[in-house]
C-alpha cells in the first residue's frame, strides 16, 4: 500500500532542538492528574482500606464471592458486548452507504442520524416502555392480533400473560434495544469521518490492478477504517458499560455495574461507599483491559497514508443506490422512534401526571416562560465545554498518535478513567476533592465545566485519533523541511487535514454535554440549572407533559444547528461531517 510506512512517525522535531510537544505532554499529564486522578483516587482508595485503616483486598473478595455483585459484573459484560456488536453492524454499513453513494437528502440524513445521541434524560427509554411495555401501544396491538389467531389464549393474555412473540421489554433485551439505537451514531460519525479522509488513490490503485469493488472494500477500505471502527466500537462499549439511565428504567431487577454502584453510593440513608468504590474499580479494570486490547491491535498496524486528496462520490448502479437509501432511512426511522414519541406526547393534553391523546400546546406555553435561563445555560456550558474538549482533544490525540510510547499510553488510560464511573459518583468525587483546599470549585460554574470536560474529552480525542491515523507524517515532514516551524506546520498542514475528525469529535462532545444529567444534578448551583435539569425536575414531579415539551425543545436545539450546518456545507462538501 502506497505510503503506508512502518517507521516511527515522529514529525516536527527539528534535530537538536527541544520538541515543543514535550511541553504539551507534561501539561496534559498535570492537568489530567489533577482533575481526574486526584479526585478519583480519593474516592476509590476506600476500596482497599480495611476497617482498621490498613490495606486490604477483603472488599474485592466479597465482591466476587457474592452472587449479587458478580451477577452485575456478568450482566454488564454481556450487555456491553451485545450493544457494541450491534452498533458496529449498523454503523459501518450506514457510514459506507451515506459517505460513498449518492443517497438523496444527505444533509438532512446526517443531522437525523446524530439525533438519537441526544437522549434526553429518562425520556428516551420511557418511550420504549410506552410502546413495548406490558401495556404498550405495540404490545396491545400484538395482543389483539395474537388473540385473533389463537382465541384460546384470550383469558391468559387478559390475566397479564405475554404474547410469546416478543416476551417482555424489561431486562437485558430492553437495555440492548434502547442503547443500540441510542449509540450507533458514534460508529457512524467516526467511520464516516475516516472514510472521507482515505486517499482515493489507494482504492483506485487496487481497482486498476484488477480487484473487484467488493474485494477492494474488504482488503483495502476496511483495513484502513479499522482505527475508526475500533475507536467507535470502543466508545460504544465504554458508554454502554457505564450507562445508568437505560438500565435504571427498563432494567427492572436486572442489575448492571453502574446501577449497582449508584445504589451502593447514592442512598437516602448513607449507602456503602467502600463497596461502591470496589465495584467502580472492577468496572474500571474491565474497561482498561478493553482499552489496552484496542491500543495493542491498532499499534500492530500503522495505517498512515498521504491523504491530502479527498474522494468524490462514485456513481453506483440504481438498484444498489435504492437499497442503500432504504437501509439508511430505515435505520434512522427506527432509531428516531423514541424522539418521535417524545415530540408527539408533548402535544398531548395533560392533567397532573396523566397524558391523554389529543392536541394542545399548553405544555409548551407553561415551559417557555421559565426556560430562558436554562436554555442559555445549556448553550453556554456546552459551547465552552466542547471548545475546551476540542482544544485539549486535538493536542492529546496528536500526542497519542505521533508520540506513541509508554508515557502517552498512560495519558490515554488516564483520559478514559471517568468513562468507567457513573456521572453521579464522579460528581461526588469532584465535590469531595474540590469542595475545599487545594482548590474550591463547588458552588461555581467551573465545577460543571470541569465535569463535562473530563467526562466528554474521550469523544473529542477518539474522533481526532481515528483521522490522524490516516495522515502520513511525511506530509508534515515536508513542511518542516521546507522551513516551516513545527507550530506553523501543525496549524497550516496537520490541523486542516484533521478537520473531519475534529468536527465529528466536536459534534459527539457537544451532543453529549448538552444532554448530560447525572453529574449536573449534584453539581449545578444557584441559577445554573440546565435544560436537562429542567427535564429531570419535571420527570420527578410527575409532569410528563412538561418533560416531553422541554425534551422536544432540546431535540430541536440540537437538530436545527446540525441541519443548518450540513446544508450550508453543501451536499458535495459533506466531508466535514
Amino acid at each position, binding site marked *: 500500500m502506497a505510503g503506508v510506512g512502518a517507521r516511527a512517525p515522529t514529525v516536527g522535531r527539528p534535530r537538536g532542538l527541544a520538541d515543543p510537544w514535550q511541553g504539551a505532554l507534561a501539561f496534559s499529564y498535570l492537568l489530567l492528574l489533577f482533575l481526574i486522578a486526584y479526585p478519583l483516587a480519593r474516592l476509590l482508595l476506600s476500596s482497599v482500606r480495611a476497617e482498621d485503616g490498613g490495606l486490604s483486598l477483603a472488599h474485592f473478595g466479597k465482591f466476587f464471592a457474592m452472587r449479587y455483585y458478580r451477577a452485575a459484573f456478568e450482566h454488564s459484560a454481556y450487555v456491553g458486548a451485545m450493544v457494541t456488536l450491534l452498533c458496529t453492524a449498523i454503523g459501518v454499513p450506514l457510514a459506507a452507504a451515506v459517505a460513498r453513494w449518492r443517497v438523496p437528502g444527505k444533509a438532512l440524513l446526517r443531522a437525523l442520524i446524530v439525533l438519537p445521541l441526544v437522549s434526553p434524560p429518562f425520556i428516551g427509554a420511557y418511550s420504549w416502555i410506552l410502546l413495548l411495555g406490558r401495556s404498550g401501544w405495540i404490545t396491545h396491538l400484538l395482543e389483539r392480533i395474537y388473540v385473533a389467531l389463537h382465541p384460546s389464549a384470550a383469558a391468559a393474555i387478559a390475566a397479564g400473560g405475554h404474547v410469546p412473540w416478543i416476551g417482555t421489554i424489561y431486562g437485558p433485551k430492553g437495555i440492548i434495544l434502547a442503547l443500540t439505537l441510542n449509540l450507533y451514531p458514534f460508529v457512524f460519525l467516526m467511520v464516516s469521518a475516516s472514510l472521507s479522509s482515505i486517499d482515493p488513490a489507494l482504492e483506485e490503485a487496487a481497482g486498476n490492478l484488477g480487484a473487484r469493488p467488493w474485494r477492494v472494500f474488504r482488503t483495502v477500505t476496511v483495513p484502513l477504517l479499522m482505527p475508526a471502527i475500533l475507536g467507535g466500537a470502543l466508545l460504544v462499549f465504554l458508554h454502554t458499560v457505564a450507562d445508568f439511565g437505560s438500565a435504571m428504567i427498563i432494567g427492572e431487577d436486572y442489575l448492571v455495574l453502574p446501577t449497582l454502584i449508584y445504589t451502593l453510593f447514592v442512598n*437516602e440513608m448513607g449507602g456503602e461507599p467502600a463497596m461502591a468504590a470496589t465495584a467502580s474499580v472492577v468496572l474500571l479494570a474491565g474497561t482498561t483491559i478493553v482499552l489496552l486490547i484496542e491500543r495493542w491491535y491498532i499499534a500492530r498496524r500503522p495505517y498512515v497514508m498521504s491523504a491530502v486528496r479527498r474522494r468524490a462520490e462514485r456513481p453506483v448502479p440504481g438498484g444498489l443506490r435504492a437499497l442503500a437509501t432504504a437501509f439508511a432511512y430505515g435505520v434512522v426511522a427506527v432509531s428516531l422512534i423514541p424522539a418521535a414519541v417524545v415530540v408527539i406526547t408533548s402535544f398531548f393534553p395533560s392533567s397532573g401526571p396523566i397524558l391523554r391523546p389529543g392536541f394542545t400546546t399548553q405544555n409548551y406555553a407553561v415551559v417557555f416562560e421559565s426556560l430562558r435561563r436554562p436554555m442559555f445555560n445549556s448553550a453556554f456550558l456546552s459551547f465552552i465545554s466542547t471548545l475546551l474538549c476540542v482544544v485539549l482533544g486535538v493536542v492529546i490525540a496528536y500526542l497519542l498518535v505521533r508520540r506513541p510510547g509508554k508515557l502517552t499510553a498512560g495519558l490515554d488510560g488516564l483520559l478514559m478513567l471517568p468513562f468507567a464511573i457513573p456521572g453521579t459518583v464522579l460528581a461526588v468525587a469532584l465535590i469531595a476533592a474540590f469542595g475545599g483546599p487545594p482548590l474550591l470549585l463547588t458552588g461555581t460554574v467551573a465545577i460543571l465545566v470541569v465535569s463535562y470536560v473530563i467526562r466528554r474529552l474521550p469523544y473529542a480525542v477518539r474522533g481526532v485519533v481515528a483521522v490522524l491515523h490516516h495522515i502520513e507524517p511525511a506530509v508534515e515532514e515536508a513542511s518542516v523541511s521546507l522551513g516551516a516551524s513545527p507550530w506553523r506546520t501543525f496549524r497550516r498542514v496537520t490541523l486542516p487535514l484533521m478537520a473531519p475528525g475534529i468536527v465529528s469529535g466536536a459534534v459527539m462532545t457537544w451532543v453529549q454535554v448538552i444532554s448530560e444529567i447525572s453529574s449536573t444534578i449534584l453539581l449545578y448551583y444557584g441559577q445554573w440549572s440546565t435544560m436537562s435539569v429542567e427535564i429531570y425536575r419535571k420527570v*420527578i414531579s410527575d409532569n410528563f407533559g412538561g418533560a416531553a415539551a422541554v425534551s422536544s425543545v432540546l431535540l430541536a436545539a440540537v437538530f436545527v444547528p446540525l441541519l443548518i450546518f450540513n446544508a450550508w456545507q453543501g451536499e458535495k462538501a459533506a466531508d466535514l461531517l
Partner: protein
Amino acid sequence: MSSAFRTVHRFREFLLGVGVILALLVGWFSAGCGPGRQGSRELAVYSAEKEEIILAVSEMWAKAEPSIRMNNIAAGTQEIVQRVLSEKRHPLGDVVWGIGAEGPSALPQLFEPYETQERKAVDARWSQMVKGEPWQPNNIVPMCLIYNTKLVEAKDAPRSWRDLADARWKGRLAYAAPDKSGSAYTQLATMVAVFGDNGAGWKMIGRIMANAKILPSSGKVPKGVADGEYALGVTYENVANLYVLGKAPVKIVYPVEGTAILPDANALIRGCPHPKEARRFLDFVQGKAVQEMLARKLSLRSCRTDVSDPPGLPPVDSIKAAPAFNFRWSVQHRKEFIEKWQELVLGLQQ
C-alpha cells in the same frame, strides 16, 4: 492540496458562524435579565417537593420576604441527601425542604436541630415523633396501596398487606427497593410491624416479595400502575393522589391491618452559609398560610392542628395506623431489616 485549503477556509467560516450564534445568544439572554440585585440576601433550598409545590411556595415567599432571593435545587430525596453529604466540607445549601424523614434521621450529623416558631401549632402526634430528631415535620404522608382499575376489578382489589401475598399477583405487584428508597424502607418496616419480626412474619414478607417486581425508585411505582405496567403497587398517599386527581385508572387502598403515617422532613443544614434566612424559611413553610395553601390547592395533609384535611382525602384520623409501627424503632432496625430483606430477595432469585 487545494481541498485542504478549502477545508481550512470552511473551518474558519464555521468558527465564525459559531461565534456569531454565541454572541446572539448572549445578547438575547442579557436582554431578558435585569441588572443583578447587588447586596440582596440569598437562600439555597434543597427540595424533593414537586415542581408545582415549589413554584407556589416560591411565589408566597417572594411576597413575604422580597429581600431574600430563594434559589431552588430540586431533585429526588436520594440526590438531595447525597448532595448534602458530599458538600459537608463546604456546605452550599441552607435547608432541606420536603424530603423523606428517613434521611435526616439516619444522618443526624449533617443537620442542626432547630425548633421553629410554629412548633406550638404542630399536632402533638408529630411533635412527639420528632423529639430529639434533627428535623421538623412538614406534610403528613400515609403509606398505602394503589391498584389499576382497568386490570383489577373492585371486588378483587387487595384490602390488606396480607392480600399482597396472594399468588395471583405474581409479577404484577410493583414495589420500590427498600435499600434504595426511604419510603420503601418504611413500607418494609410497616410489614415487619404488621406480620411480626419473627420466622412467620418474614415468611409472609417473603411470599409478598415473590410476587413483587422490585423497582429502583419509589416514583416508578404509581406511574407503572397508572400506565398498566403493574396491576398494583405499594406507595404513599400524596404521590398516589396525584394520579387519582389526574383521573388515571387507579384507586388508593389503606390496608386494614393499619399502615405507617409519617411526616416528611424539613431541616437546617449544619454549617450552612445563610443560617438566619434558613431559620426564617423553616418557620415560613411550617406556617399557617403556606400549610393551608398546600392543603387546599395541592391536597397535602398539614402537620398543624389548625389546618383541616384536604378536600377529597379521608380525614387522617380515619386511616388506621399500624399499632406496632414506631418511627424510631424503624430507623434503629434499618440495617438489620434491609439485610434480611436482601437475603430474602436473593434467595428468591436463586
